[in-house]
């Protein structure tokens, strides 16, 4: 019975805290709150942030690398296309050059041959003319000599003889000139 009375006396006290316990509680909780909230959890937030950045940074880096690779690929493709058109252009040019050179050479050769032919013809013509001229004088003398011998008399009369020879040569020359043109 006494224990029940004692319990009831205590019973009031379970809801009325001793001041010293409250003080202990306040100090203890303040200490742990201070340490954890100052030295531990902010660093955790930093780590979380670093982790997010690491992941996002990784993705970003990968994206950047991808973009760079694409850019390089485009660049190479463009360069390749450039090189192809350049090669085609050079080929075309070379072909055109070759054709031009060929034409040039041909033209030159033709010109040369024409020139040579013309020179030959000129040469031939002057020689022929010279020959004709020489022949003309020689034939005159020869004919006069022969005629003098055959007739046996000197045709000393210069003026008569010259007229006779020239008439003779003109007679010979007329058909010869029409045939020589051919």
């Amino acid at each position, binding site marked *: 019975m006494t224990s029940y009375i004692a319990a009831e006396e205590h019973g009031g006290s379970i809801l*009325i805290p001793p001041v010293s316990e409250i003080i202990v509680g306040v100090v203890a909780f303040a200490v742990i709150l201070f340490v954890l909230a100052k030295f531990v959890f902010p660093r955790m937030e930093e780590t979380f942030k670093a982790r997010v950045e690491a992941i996002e940074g990784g993705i970003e880096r990968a994206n950047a690398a991808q973009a760079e690779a694409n850019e390089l690929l485009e660049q190479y493709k463009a360069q390749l296309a450039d090189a192809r058109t350049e090669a085609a252009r050079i080929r075309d040019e070379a072909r055109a050059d070759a054709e031009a050179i060929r034409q040039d050479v041909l033209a030159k050769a033709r010109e040369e041959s024409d020139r040579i032919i013309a020179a030959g013809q000129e040469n031939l013509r002057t020689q022929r003319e010279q020959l004709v001229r020489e022949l003309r004088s020689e034939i005159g003398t020869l004919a006069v000599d022969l005629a003098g011998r055959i007739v046996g008399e000197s045709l000393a009369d210069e003026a008569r003889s010259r007229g006779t020879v020239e008439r003779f040569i003109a007679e010979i020359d007329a058909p010869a000139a029409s045939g020589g043109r051919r």
Partner: protein
Amino acid sequence: MSKSPNVLAAEFPPGVESFDFGTLVPALEGTMWAQAVTKITLLVWLSVAILIVFFLVAYRSPKVVPTKGQWIAESVYGFVRDGIAKDIIGNKHGVRFAPYLTTLFVFILLNNLWGIVPFAQISPNSHIAFPITLALFTYVLYFAVGIKAQGLGHYIKSSIWVSGAPLWVQPILVPIELFQVLLLRPATLAIRLFANMFAGHMILLVFTLGGVALMNADAVFLKPVAVLSWGMAIVMTLFELFILSLQAYVFTLLTATYLQSSVDPAH
């Protein structure tokens, strides 16, 4: 009446005196500081020491890729930060209160856990002083946050005025809301935790000491019942594990809810 309930089956049935622990420093006997150094306060300091050492050691050199200890510490923080703070208070302000809420959570959890740790076998939170202390911290914090975030007048108005209710109901609602904000919130916070831990300890005492009493009983047929009683004590210990975790969670959750109503008046 024995001062030491540590002696098995000191008395049966257990009563409120089972929660009284004598001071460990005889010099303080009879002074107001007698209760400052007892098994209870020793366990509180032990909790503080264990948590501080654990977190500081686990986080002495944090890595982006965590070690096992760091991962556990981060998981505890992440659980409260993402599961309670961000979830209840919102992404914008939640992270700001995560350190306080996490500290609150681990401190209550470990102190509750002493209730079922062999040889400790008593939770400091079964002494109302500690739940009251924690409730006071929360109380001061959510008032301070509310006044800072909304201004004194606006905070009081948003706390007691039920927007949307018809004007003629307000004379009834305002006193109720006022009573709730000023007294009910901290009182229920403290009493819920205290009562759960108190009752839990009492139940374990009843089954454990009851078993001893049955074993010592003169009637032989009562002795097997003692085994049943101890079996129940084991079952109840497991049940206690559930309750004490839940209470730590509930205390933190409600604190977050009160902080949310301080930060965000639109509630």
